[in-house]
């Protein structure tokens, strides 16, 4: 599956939550190839400031229309500039990058924290019509715009918020612990903050359930050349988050 750079025209770009935008653009070549869990590397401006591309997960793909969708949070200079791109505008997109999730499952459990829910959308879509259970975590009710997105894709939705304004108060890991005792799953997929991933992996491993985590790190090249994003693996060697991941089997990266 060759990686490439496309000049994509933006079709839709809307605010879907606090500081969170959904961006859909035409990229037929990418739409034919992209797998759930892979990401694209976006040049947010033609200028040399900011210089580097921004890694963003592929949140949805429509192979029929040849479109890709990203869901991203505005956090700094790059994503602020990206937010200004209007429908009809052009973006320079490199991808598809990295390795996706394994789709070998009958009873999947998805766990996503905050913007980590973005890649879970395409994953859930790809797992349909299998019965999907998802645990979604966020700071508060306002951040739970995800509910609407996952409603049609998942059989069972569980929500945790830090402040208890929606669903259960606490973290996704707290909910996961109960769910693993109450039901049977053959895989757990997780994307979110590192402590969440480690917590999820620990619980899944204790129950002997396969677990895949999607890692995040600062990266420059996105293709395994610059070694900015490497992490220690349990075999004593190093892994590149961009090229060997971002999706890893939990036991490969967490001991």
């Amino acid at each position, binding site marked *: 599956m060759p990686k490439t750079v496309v000049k994509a025209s933006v079709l839709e770009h809307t605010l879907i939550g606090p500081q969170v935008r959904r961006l859909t653009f035409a990229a037929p070549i990418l739409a034919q190839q992209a797998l759930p869990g892979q990401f694209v590397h976006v040049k947010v401006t033609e200028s040399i400031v900011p*210089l*580097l*591309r921004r890694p963003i997960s592929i949140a949805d793909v429509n192979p029929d229309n040849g479109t890709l969708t990203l869901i991203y949070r505005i956090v700094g200079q790059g994503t602020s500039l990206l937010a200004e791109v209007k429908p009809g505008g052009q973006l320079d997109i490199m991808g598809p990058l990295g390795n996706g999730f394994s789709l070998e499952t009958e009873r999947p459990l998805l766990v996503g924290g905050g913007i980590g829910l973005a890649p879970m959308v395409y994953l859930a879509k790809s797992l349909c019509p299998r019965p999907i259970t998802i645990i979604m975590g966020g700071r508060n009710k306002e951040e739970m715009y995800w509910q609407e997105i996952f409603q049609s894709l998942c059989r069972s939705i569980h929500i945790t918020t830090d402040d208890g304004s929606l669903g259960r108060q606490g973290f996704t890991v707290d909910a996961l612990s109960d769910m693993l005792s109450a039901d049977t799953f053959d895989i757990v997929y997780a994307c979110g903050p590192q402590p969440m991933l480690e917590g999820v992996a620990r619980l899944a491993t204790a129950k002997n359930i396969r677990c895949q985590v999607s890692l995040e790190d*600062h990266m*420059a*090249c996105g293709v395994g050349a*610059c070694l900015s994003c490497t992490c220690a693996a349990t075999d004593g060697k*190093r892994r590149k988050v961009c090229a060997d991941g971002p999706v890893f089997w939990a036991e490969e990266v967490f001991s």
Partner: protein
Amino acid sequence: MLAVTIAGISMKTPVMTASGTFGFGPEYSDFVDLNTIGAIVVKGTTLAPRAGNSGCRIAETPAGMLNSIGLENPGSDEFLKATLPKLKKYDVPIIVNISGNTVEEYGKLAAKLSVNGVAGFELNISCPNVKEGGIAFGTVPQSAAAVVREVKKNTHLPVIAKLSPNVTDIVAMARAVEEAGADAISLINTLLGMAIDTKSWRPVLGNVVGGLSGPAVKPVALRMVWQVANAVNVPVIGMGGIMTALDAVEFLLAGASAVAVGTANFVNPYAAAEVAEGLCEYLKERGLSHVQKLVGQVNHNIG
């Protein structure tokens, strides 16, 4: 029109890829036909494997970036066993960028890696990201010369000395490595820099300091290339912030016989090929028969 021979290494174009910015090459093979590149300078290689620095390793800066990778690499055994065989299928000179903790280690590495498939060595005496060796060899002329002499004793292959810009007198460094037998000189490596997070008050990089590269460093690189090219007789390979063919033209005019594309690869994965193509266009537009016609031709006449 573009073919050059640098330190006895024949290249199809004067556009090489800079160490640490192009992996071992295959990482970019979806974007660039590796057979068309002047030479691939592979990631800094050490005798034993290195894990590199911990914590955050890159920080973006205006028109540039800081890196503190810390020479993560699989080591010389793995390079010979796994990497080099894969590179042999490409028709492109492979230059190994080597780094040692001691003068002797540079010699050992050169001897060990002087094998079929390796076209030459680039001595990284200028890495700002490792505690021992590295930059120390690159800031004292006598130490730099000692490294070059040791490597020359241990290999028949061409030896390129890569200079650090973090010195007061770049010309003294260049003269020292030339006298010690370097077949070519490449410059610049990254400029030592730093970034601080104003929320946490912590350095952004786990290693606190790191090397600055990208368009931000180009004027400094160009000045140093010009100074060195005017002071030595061996060919100079210029790098530092080259993003386009016109950037490369500047380095050639300043006196570089070849150039290397580094950080630009991260931004535009086609950069190495596009710089060479653009160079060809430029020569045609100017009615020049060969890239050699640009080398050192910066015009100092005013008016």
